[in-house]
């Protein structure tokens, strides 16, 4: 027991670990709070699609010799809106629209990286996350993002709840469904871009899906789902990051594994209660 506490104290003495946990918790909180709207509207895989777009924007940033964040955030926001427009106006449904936009973006990224002579950055870090790469600027952006998400969910709660349940009815009673969807898409985009630093392109969608689906196993109301999924996400990030330090494991994969364990445990609990 003392060894575990000593390891946690040692881990928290490093500034990169402090940054990793704070950013991870804020990203976890944001992705869990947005997750319910995306999962229930069958946009679960938007995180995966936007992560591919974000990965491609790294190539664009390298090609233009500028900061990846400056390029990633606006392009990923545009991509998320494009996915929704394809769904609404062109009749190309959620998963197909996500597939189109993400594969097209990756193709652009690969072509640009080829033209510019290939990647010269830590590719593995972008694919699976690297807490060592988290900068002070990421921390401040995460604070702003988390505040934005919490503000949005609190103040637009009823609108978002109505749209998630029935978009056609929401339009009829005068809720600006398109603007609310764009708001969620924008916040999701920023969450994805920042979250890639923590868990990587390949795993970021799990931070949106796992906490919500796990919470849905035991929650009875919409609000309780948001609260439970936020708690699961924050718990998974803290245990995952500290566990990865203690056992020298990749942080992103550790966070996802904790999320998966919680999901399986809650699903088992639900079956036990029903039987």
């Amino acid at each position, binding site marked *: 027991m003392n060894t575990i506490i000593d390891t946690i104290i040692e881990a928290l003495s490093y500034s990169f670990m402090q940054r990793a946990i704070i950013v991870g918790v804020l990203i976890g909180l944001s992705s869990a709070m947005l997750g*319910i709207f995306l999962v*229930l509207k069958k946009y679960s895989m938007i995180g995966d699609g936007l992560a591919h777009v974000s990965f491609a924007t790294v190539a664009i940033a390298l090609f233009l010799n500028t900061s990846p964040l400056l390029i990633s955030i606006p392009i990923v926001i545009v991509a998320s809106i494009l996915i929704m427009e394809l769904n609404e106006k062109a009749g190309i449904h959620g998963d197909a629209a996500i597939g189109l936009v993400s594969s097209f973006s990756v193709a652009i990224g690969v072509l640009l990286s080829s033209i510019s002579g290939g990647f010269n950055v830590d590719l593995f870090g972008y694919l699976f996350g690297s807490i060592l790469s988290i900068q002070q600027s990421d921390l401040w952006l995460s604070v702003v993002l988390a505040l934005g998400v919490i503000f949005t969910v*609190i*103040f*637009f*709660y*009823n*609108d978002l*709840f*109505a749209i998630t*349940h*029935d978009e*056609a*009815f*929401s*339009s*009829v*009673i*005068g*809720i600006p469904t398109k603007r609310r969807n764009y708001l969620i898409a924008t916040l999701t985009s920023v969450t994805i871009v920042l979250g890639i630093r923590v868990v990587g392109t390949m795993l970021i969608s799990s931070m949106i899906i796992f906490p919500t689906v796990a919470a*849905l196993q035991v*929650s*009875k*109301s*919409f609000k*309780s*789902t948001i609260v439970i999924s936020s708690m699961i996400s924050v718990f998974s990030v803290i245990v995952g990051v500290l566990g990865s330090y203690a056992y020298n494991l990749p942080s992103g994969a550790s966070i996802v594994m904790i999320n998966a364990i919680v999901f399986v445990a809650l699903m088992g609990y639900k079956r036990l209660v029903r039987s």
Partner: protein
Amino acid sequence: MTSKLIEAKNITVRYGNNVVLTDISFAIEKGDYIGLVGANGSGKSTLVKALLGLIPLEKGKIVYNDLYKFEHGIGYLPQVAVTGNTLFPAEVREIVGIGLLGQKKFPKRLTKEDHLKVDTILDRLGIIGLKHKKIGDLSGGQQQRVLLARAMVSHPKLLILDEPTSALDPRVRADFFNLIEEINKVDQTSIVLVSHDLSSIKRYTRKMMLLDRELVYFGPSDEFDLNFGMAKGMHNHEHDY
């Protein structure tokens, strides 16, 4: 003062190169109970969307005469009403409360009075006992009543019900029609009920509107010839009752 709630004046709707509705004119009056019928592709759902202001008109206009504010004046039960998603995490009272959001200003909080309105409509529709149940745990007929409560909780002057009974079994369907008839008679709420089931519509409604991309018939239900509707590609499900 006119008793007309809505007047459609020569409306035409087009999707791309496809003209879905041509030169349609009619009026919905206070207390009307109208059955909107037509075969698949006849333009029923398009007309409903046009009345709700969800799609643009190519020609003509729709005048909302006695609906003091559009969002409050029309209650709507969408076509794909029964969610069937057992994981959707919402209690019945939360779903019905959505129907009051159109009257709210930012940040749209429901008050004690609003919760009382929700209780009143649930009681009125005989489902107050389901108030704290999860929507996904209810049967199709119960879910339909919940969504009807959501449409009615703001006391609309006009209720538009788009294929409300298509997912229900015959007995539950008959109960639902009886309930709608009572709402129309007791509350004087005007009803537009969309269906492709000719016989039950003709039996319950007072006016019929037959669409075939244009207005083929609009008049008293008892003067409507079922054979005429069947000739337009519709079905008679008389044996269901």
